[in-house]
């Protein structure tokens, strides 16, 4: 199951990259389907090639959030109603996540990452995300948080919940979105 989920995560990311590139030349709705097909076929046919094995080595565990963000973006491209994140939400995420990464690389003594191994703090964090979603009407974040918790409890993927609901690639993604909004 772990291998299957990692393959699925890789397929979504490749499909998202293809969608983004094809979006320059094709209509967004068409780019979604062609990009998705490219991602799926690449993993099915070329998963044991050097580039894909390298991507898995570099980016795994993919978790839930990164593929979910990719699918969300592609769904918006396909014309489905997707409520974009507010600018302040992206800014708050960036500040909190960069502080989190700072603690993880030892720049501060507090090790926030390690609480992602323990059931009780994870339970509190997931419910906090659900509460935030309830108050703002945003079901996407609670869905990712609970799916991540489900995978974490099942032992599928990382033994740390944070790896399911964050990914370091979210930093450049959020930055690009913020910059595009400024332009």
């Amino acid at each position, binding site marked *: 199951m*772990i291998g299957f989920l990692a393959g699925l995560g890789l397929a979504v990311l490749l499909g998202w990259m293809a969608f983004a590139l094809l979006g320059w030349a094709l209509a967004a709705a068409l780019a979604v389907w062609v990009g998705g097909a490219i991602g799926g076929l690449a993993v099915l046919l070329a998963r044991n090639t050097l580039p894909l094995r390298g991507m898995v*080595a570099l980016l795994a565990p993919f978790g839930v959030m990164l593929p979910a963000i990719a699918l969300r973006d592609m769904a918006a491209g396909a014309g489905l109603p997707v409520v974009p994140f507010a600018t302040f939400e992206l800014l708050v995420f960036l500040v909190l996540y960069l502080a989190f990464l700072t603690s993880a690389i030892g*720049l501060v003594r507090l090790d926030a990452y390690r609480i992602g191994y323990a059931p009780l703090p994870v*339970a509190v964090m997931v*419910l906090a995300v659900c*509460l935030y979603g309830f108050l703002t009407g945003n*079901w996407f974040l609670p869905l990712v948080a*609970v799916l991540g918790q*489900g995978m974490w409890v099942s032992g599928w993927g990382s033994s740390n919940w944070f790896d399911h609901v964050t990914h370091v690639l979210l930093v450049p993604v959020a930055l690009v979105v913020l910059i595009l909004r400024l332009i």
Partner: protein
Amino acid sequence: MGSGDIFILALALISVALSGYALWRDETLNWVFAVPRPPAPEPGDAPLFETLFDYRPEKGVAHSPAIVANDETLSVLWFEGSSEAQPDIEIRRAVLGEGPEGWRAGAPETFLTSEALGRAFDPGQLVVTLGNTIQNDAAERSLYATVVSVGGWAMASIAEVRMEGTLPVRARKLDLSPFLNRSFLVRSPMVAYADGSHALPAYFEMGTTYGALVRLNADGRVRDQRRIDGTGVKPIQPMIVALDGARALAFLRDFDDSGQLYLSRTEDGGRHWTLAEATDVPHPNAPVAALSLSGGRILMARNGGGKKSGRLELAVSGDDGKSWHMIHRFEREPGEARYPMLRGLADGRILLAYSTNSKRGVRVVVFNEAWVAAR
């Protein structure tokens, strides 16, 4: 209340159920060290000191030996190739056996390659090179290997590798960092706990560096990690020796090249560690090995004698590491002796493995406490 709100409430309920299951299933970590109690030497025991294995490859490096002891075999592993961190590095081993004629070391053989390890992951992963590898004391035929898929050692990960003979059959990386799961390495032997579980001493090497004690659950998945760090130093490669159920010492290499050996202590089974402080032991930027002896003493293999010392020596402490008495200095040889690893055998004998000739050779010696006592 809209359908979105109901959906979120349903998610919250699912989360509560998942949390309840996770809490019910969670194994409470035992933080009481298993204290090794090696047998004291008998009055009639003859001192023993013997070289079992002395290997030099025709070219390239052979470095960072580890002793692997299980029910089936006793062997020494090291990494070997044209140069450190190169793609042709592989883990090699020599099986050590004891027969009527004494100890005998088998011919060095390839044990683990990057290519074979990459195939053992699910899905397959690129493994560019291999580094320090140690025995996983918590599982049969299992190792912890330092693997690099991109970049250098600062981009390494720790992989648990299950072996069948000389074939890796399953591998997975330990989940230790949110930064692409990078920059954790292993070097020192595992630490045993009273309930039979084990912890893995590891270290983080990207930018600010620190040591870590990694707690694993029964499935070998990471359940917790505790930092062993310092101020103004880069303490890595923690070598942990339990003094009793609650107290332990972690001897640390200073990656900042201060020329001192560093020490951190715990008094609660490894939950919290003091900031690493310099000892009065001058030491190059290199790891030490340590082991409990009978009578509560500690044996250390180190490069005493200064910042550039390439000679290895053995020292004993009878006061929980406060003072040391040097008992043996190995002969001066071309190049540096580095990366010692000590392992006690069930009968009380002690194996010491280390690299020789500035990472271009591997040697294993065996001695006993009678020899230590006679020094």
